[in-house]
């Protein structure tokens, strides 16, 4: 049995997938979701074999949903945008379906899904999904310890701090923890707005109030809210180049 979760924000689109799937005796729908939040929850809850995933949805798009999954089902994107469909393979989606859906193509894809289901590795692909997000990153998705999902637009970031193998996203006084190396996110952010000023800090340059000499060869960046961040010598070079 292929246990399937359908994700699409439009009811008629979900209905069509449901109709196609009901014709397939090997498939069972375990959840239907109308947005990305529900999708993340449903995958955690049901651990499905197959995720039929729309890309353009409110709050979380399909790529962001993948980034937040702990366990990875087989993913097939369902979209009207063929430019997104091409990116599907980069995040190791098995295949994609273009709207309006063709039943013949749907059946072909389901055959592929069944062949792949036997030897599919369910460990998370979220790392890959993260690396392959569109650049520069416009927003960062974070799942808290309680499972609550937060979407942080990069314009709201003050700075990012490395904390062991995770990062802390600082936004107006609060810090959100995300499991991701600082070096990875540093390369995904807009290089004209975010600078790595230190081994452990990436700063939003719009938040910098001034740079002060602290001791010989060591400087501190003082942010608008008074936060003081260390600036290494190479970090200072990068800042100077940008400003």
């Amino acid at each position: 049995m292929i246990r399937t979760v359908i994700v699409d924000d439009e009811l008629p689109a979900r209905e069509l997938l449901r109709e196609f799937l009901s014709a397939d005796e090997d498939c069972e729908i375990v959840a239907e979701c109308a947005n990305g939040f529900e999708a993340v929850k449903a995958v955690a809850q049901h651990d499905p074999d197959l995720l039929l995933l729309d890309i353009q949805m409110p709050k979380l798009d399909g790529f962001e949903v993948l980034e937040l999954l702990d366990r990875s089902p087989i993913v097939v994107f369902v979209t009207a945008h063929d430019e997104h469909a091409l990116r599907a393979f980069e995040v190791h989606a098995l295949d994609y379906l273009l709207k309006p859906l063709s039943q013949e193509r749907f059946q072909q894809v389901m055959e592929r899904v069944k062949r792949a289901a036997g030897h599919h590795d369910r460990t998370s692909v979220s790392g890959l999904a993260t690396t392959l997000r569109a650049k520069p990153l416009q927003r960062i998705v974070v799942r808290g310890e309680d499972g609550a999902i937060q979407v942080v637009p990069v314009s709201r970031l003050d700075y990012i701090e490395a904390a062991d193998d995770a990062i802390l996203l600082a936004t107006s006084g609060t810090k959100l923890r995300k499991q991701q190396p600082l070096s990875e996110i540093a390369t995904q952010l807009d290089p004209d707005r975010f600078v790595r000023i230190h081994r452990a800090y990436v700063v939003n340059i719009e938040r910098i109030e001034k740079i002060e000499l602290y001791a010989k060869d060591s400087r501190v960046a003082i942010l608008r809210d008074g936060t003081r961040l260390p600036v290494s010598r190479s970090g200072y070079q990068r800042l100077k180049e940008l400003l």
Partner: protein
Amino acid sequence: MATTRTALSRAALALYAVTAVTAAAAASSAFFLWARGASAGLAVAAALPPSLLLGIIALASRFLSNALPLRSASRSSIAIGHAGSAAAASGLWVLTWKSWVPALNQQFATHLAPDYSLLFGLGVVLYLAAVAVHYLVLEIEALREAEDEVLRYRVLAREAELRAFKAQVDPHFLFNSLNAVASMCGSRPLEAREMAQRLADFFRLILRLGALERITLAEEIDLVQRYLAIEQVRFGERLTTHISVDEAAARCMVPPLLLQPLVENAVRHGVASMVEGGTIDITATLEDHMLRIVIDNPADPDRADARGEGIGIENARGRLSAVSEGRAMLQAAEAEGQFRVVIELPR
């Protein structure tokens, strides 16, 4: 290119003006002297230097004419300004005569002294003639600029039309709608048939209205309503619409497909970005000969990719400015999760 040409022609014009005033002043004053018995050579030698000075002063009167434009300055200030400067210029020209002539020839100065009051009158007349020429040149330049402006608006209008034509309808709207039709075919064939019909009607209307120069706001609103009815099928309860158009506003003429792309934005980047959906509110009123159209919709401030909407709004602004020759206004603003576009178009 155009500016260098204007600057060049201005320099040439200045040279002509100095030469013309100088020549006129020199010829007429030399004639006076000659008529009183001076030799022709002496008369010309005496007349040339003061005449050159008058020519240069007359050229400088351009700045005064610029400062006192015919269209906006009051008549009395123009009259007083130029009369005063004419008297001053002519006074200077007579003074130059008085100091130059004795230096040239003492005997000539005592026996054949020029008639200074006549020279003063001549100075005033020539100076005022120069002022008149300056005003004429200024008027011609203003006229040429106005023609350029009209031409610029026509080019803008053309470009905006082309862009609007390309961006009329997002093709993904068609793909998604066809997917909805496909979905209904199985369980609700009658609705599927109706949806197919609505799609066909909508695209037919786009083609028909798009070919016209101007349409009534009522026609544009009809198009928008057809569009929203199709989106309603896809979005279901997530999309609600509220449209209120004054009777007088409905009769106003607008460029075709002005609102449609903006409403499409309101759905695609607005309501579609909200998990719960929301209401698109369109109002149109006519007050004091000003047509005012407001489109309100909720939008997630954290939505990804907000670039597409910017293009749509720029296009609409370009077309509006083109059809109204710059008198219309389009403002887009976002605050507290609400996106609002305001259009003001003078009738």
